[in-house]
């Protein structure tokens, strides 16, 4: 299903835009901040930042940037017709673009979280958080790809999901953990290290992450099948 040409073009779209530097800035800042605090303070203050800031904010932001870069602009300006006017499976296009977005999210999101967690010491909890970040990064990138395929305001919509639903409401109502990508990842990480909280049950966290990932990519492909060019405005 993977289409190498589409993936190559998506990668070029990702690397060729100014957003790419923003994508790089997030992990660099995170690691820099954690290093600084580790050096300047005693105790576990630096560790707090990794799940608190890195995992809940940097990871989804990176995923939003990556997913919207590989699909958003092309859908916005309609130039995706150049890819779609080819006998290429729409699901193949969605999968290829998702894999590129996923790769970017893992490299610029999950991996730096792992590095930052390692800097604070304890390897077990670092591995646990990394596993959680890989799961959440995978799920996020599929969800945000699907959002990019339906709306011109994908970045805003995705940000609202992260900031309002997951962060703000998620902090106020514990039940939202059952419907929060970041909490599913945390729960999966908890299976490896007790230092991570236990917000929901494990089979649910695994199942829900899987379902959202598959449904997100499938939905993006289906939207591409029905992609419409609007007439003269």
């Amino acid at each position, binding site marked *: 299903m993977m*289409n*190498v*040409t*589409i993936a*190559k*073009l998506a990668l*070029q*779209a990702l690397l*060729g835009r100014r957003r790419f530097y923003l994508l790089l800035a997030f992990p660099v800042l995170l690691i820099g901040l954690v290093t600084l605090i580790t050096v300047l303070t005693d105790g576990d203050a630096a560790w707090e930042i990794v799940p608190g800031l890195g995992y809940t904010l940097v990871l989804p932001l990176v995923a939003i940037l990556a997913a919207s870069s590989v699909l958003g*602009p*092309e859908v916005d*300006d*309609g*130039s995706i*017709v*150049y*890819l*779609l*006017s*080819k*006998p*290429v*499976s*729409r699901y193949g296009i969605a999968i290829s673009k998702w894999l590129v977005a996923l790769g970017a999210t893992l490299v610029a999101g999950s991996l730096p979280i792992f590095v930052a967690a390692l800097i604070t010491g304890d390897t077990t909890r670092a591995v646990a958080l990394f596993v959680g970040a890989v799961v959440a990064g995978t799920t996020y990138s599929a969800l945000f790809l699907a959002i990019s395929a339906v709306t011109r305001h994908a970045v805003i919509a995705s940000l609202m999901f992260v900031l309002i639903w997951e962060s703000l409401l998620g902090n106020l109502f514990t039940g939202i953990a059952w419907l929060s990508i970041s909490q599913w990842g945390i729960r999966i990480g908890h299976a490896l290290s007790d230092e991570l909280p236990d917000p929901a049950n494990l089979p649910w966290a695994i199942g829900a992450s899987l379902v959202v990932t598959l449904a997100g990519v499938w939905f993006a492909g289906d939207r591409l*099948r*029905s*992609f*419409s*060019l*609007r*007439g*003269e405005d």
Partner: protein
Amino acid sequence: MSNLVLDSASRWFGNVVAVNDVSLNIGPGVTGLLGPNGAGKTTLMAMMAGFLAPSAGHVTLDGKPVWRNTEIYHQIGLVPERELSFGYLTGRQFVRANADLHRLPDAAEATERILAEVDMVEPAARRLDTYSKGMRQRVKIAAALVHQPSVLLLDEPFNGVDPRQRMHLMDLLRRLGDDGRTVLFSSHILEEVERLARHIEVVVSGRHAASGDFGAIRRLMTDRPVQYAVQSSDNRALGAVLMAQDSVRAVSLRGDHLDVQVDDLGRFAVDLPGLAKQHDVTLFELSPSDESLESVFAYLVAR
């Protein structure tokens, strides 16, 4: 050889009807889709290219529906009006990507062949964002033609292209039509369509207003008032005589000639020489003053 058929196709967006009950059969050769801006040409093109579902009716290519049918792109090449946003690719990379997406067995060779055909071999190593409008247009056409489709759809292909490049593109499209490919291009510029298309489909306000070769469309409209400029030895005398004819609607003296508005073209043409001779007027010149497509168009819009 492919036929693109619209069968009572309509498309509306909310309350706005963009295309209203259009039936067309586009066969091999060059066809021009002519209409003013906002007539629904882009909507029609999008439906024909499988990028818009008809709200009612059917759009088929050789009998197969085009909407949500990825396989038609083996046969269709599309040149959208939309700008290329792949500025970071070179012309060659872009055309090659198109060849790869079609999984052509020898994509590199197909790329070079089509670049040569549109005369873009030399600038192909430069990035797309350094190209002029005409060059981008040619690269877009190359990308659409790289898999040798039997149908080529071009939306406003001559927009913003300078006259020399326009001639070049027209030659290319004419050649493709002569090869037996189905070439359909849209335009709101009358002389373009006149010069290139053997067959013309006119859309006005979302409706199919006329169809045929240029001559046929002209003949369709012989019952409309036609304007002639007449020069003779005695314009005033001739004017008086003409005004008495049933076929003439209006006569006016204008400088050195006579403007005559004629209802019945056939009768007027037959009667004029006899009338002139009978009243001792010598005719110097008789010319239609609005034979351009523009007037055909204005008439269709007003109809």
